[in-house]
């Protein structure tokens, strides 16, 4: 993967597959540390499965024998001087947390968070994105969007394109010229 935002997309896809109805993504850049938290209320994992989920040979996929999503994010964080943790409870949900040292030479760029956020939009799952740089925060909650939309699906192309420009503008303003 070339961007942290692509890892976020991949981990959020796990949450969607786990039948989450709410997924929270918290991205925070503060004091030279970039922290990404993805929390869902999906079906979770039991202790035994969780203990080996960072191993590429752990997957419940039937189409192939390896699951790369989680191991790749762990590797990306640890390569950039950061840490990776995953906690999960069966029937309750899962939380994945990865941190990256911002000025570490091996850190990949954060990349296009707006594109990632609109790619996962879907009428069955609500998303809350919290984007913080130093003391500036922007929150995007799809429940507020759906309230405005009524019966129109949130993943209609027109809505997706609009939300992408909304997110791009707001994220740029929070960045304030800082290129993460």
């Amino acid at each position, binding site marked *: *993967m070339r961007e942290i935002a*692509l890892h976020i*997309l*991949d981990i959020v*896809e796990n949450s969607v*597959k786990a039948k989450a109805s709410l997924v929270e993504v918290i991205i925070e850049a503060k004091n030279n540390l970039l922290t990404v938290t993805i929390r869902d209320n999906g079906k979770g994992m039991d202790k035994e499965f969780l203990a080996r989920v960072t191993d590429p040979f752990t997957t419940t*996929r039937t*189409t*192939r024998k390896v*699951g*790369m*999503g989680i191991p*790749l994010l762990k590797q990306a964080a640890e390569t950039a001087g950061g840490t990776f943790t995953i906690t999960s409870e069966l029937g309750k949900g899962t939380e994945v947390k990865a941190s990256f040292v911002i000025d570490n030479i091996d850190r990949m760029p954060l990349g*296009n968070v707006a*594109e*990632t956020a*609109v*790619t*996962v939009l*879907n009428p069955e799952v609500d998303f809350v994105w919290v984007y913080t740089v130093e003391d500036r925060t922007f929150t995007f909650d799809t429940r*507020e*969007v759906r309230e*405005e*939309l*009524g019966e*129109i699906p949130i*993943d*209609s*192309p*027109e*809505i*997706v*394109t*609009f939300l*992408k*420009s*909304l997110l791009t*503008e*707001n994220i740029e*303003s929070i960045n304030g010229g800082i290129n993460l």
Partner: protein
Amino acid sequence: MKSIADIKAIRDKMQAQIVNRDNKDAEQETRIVVGMATCGIAAGARPVFNELVDQVTSRGLTNVKVTRSGCLGMCKLEPIVEVFVPGEEKVTYVKVDAQKAKDIIARHIVGGQVCTDYLIGEE
């Protein structure tokens, strides 16, 4: 700066279109599906998905839906895009990039001609 309140105007416009459309149209929806498993994402599925969506929006195409799916089972051929036009056989495009995505909308979805140069075996 845009805000969520701006959605009202778009919603009103879309609702007017829905009212003008009859039930028969609803069954005529074309679906474009992009594989979004880890290998698809790593190979560039996200920009492909976004190009497809933005093309559908800018051309004002109604009754075209762009969605994601999980693994389509052919890692080496990702990004994979499947096109379902009602009444026609499924078409699978492989190794798609943003430029090919643009072409798929122009030639296949709008023009009605399958882009045979992007099919399996042609990549």
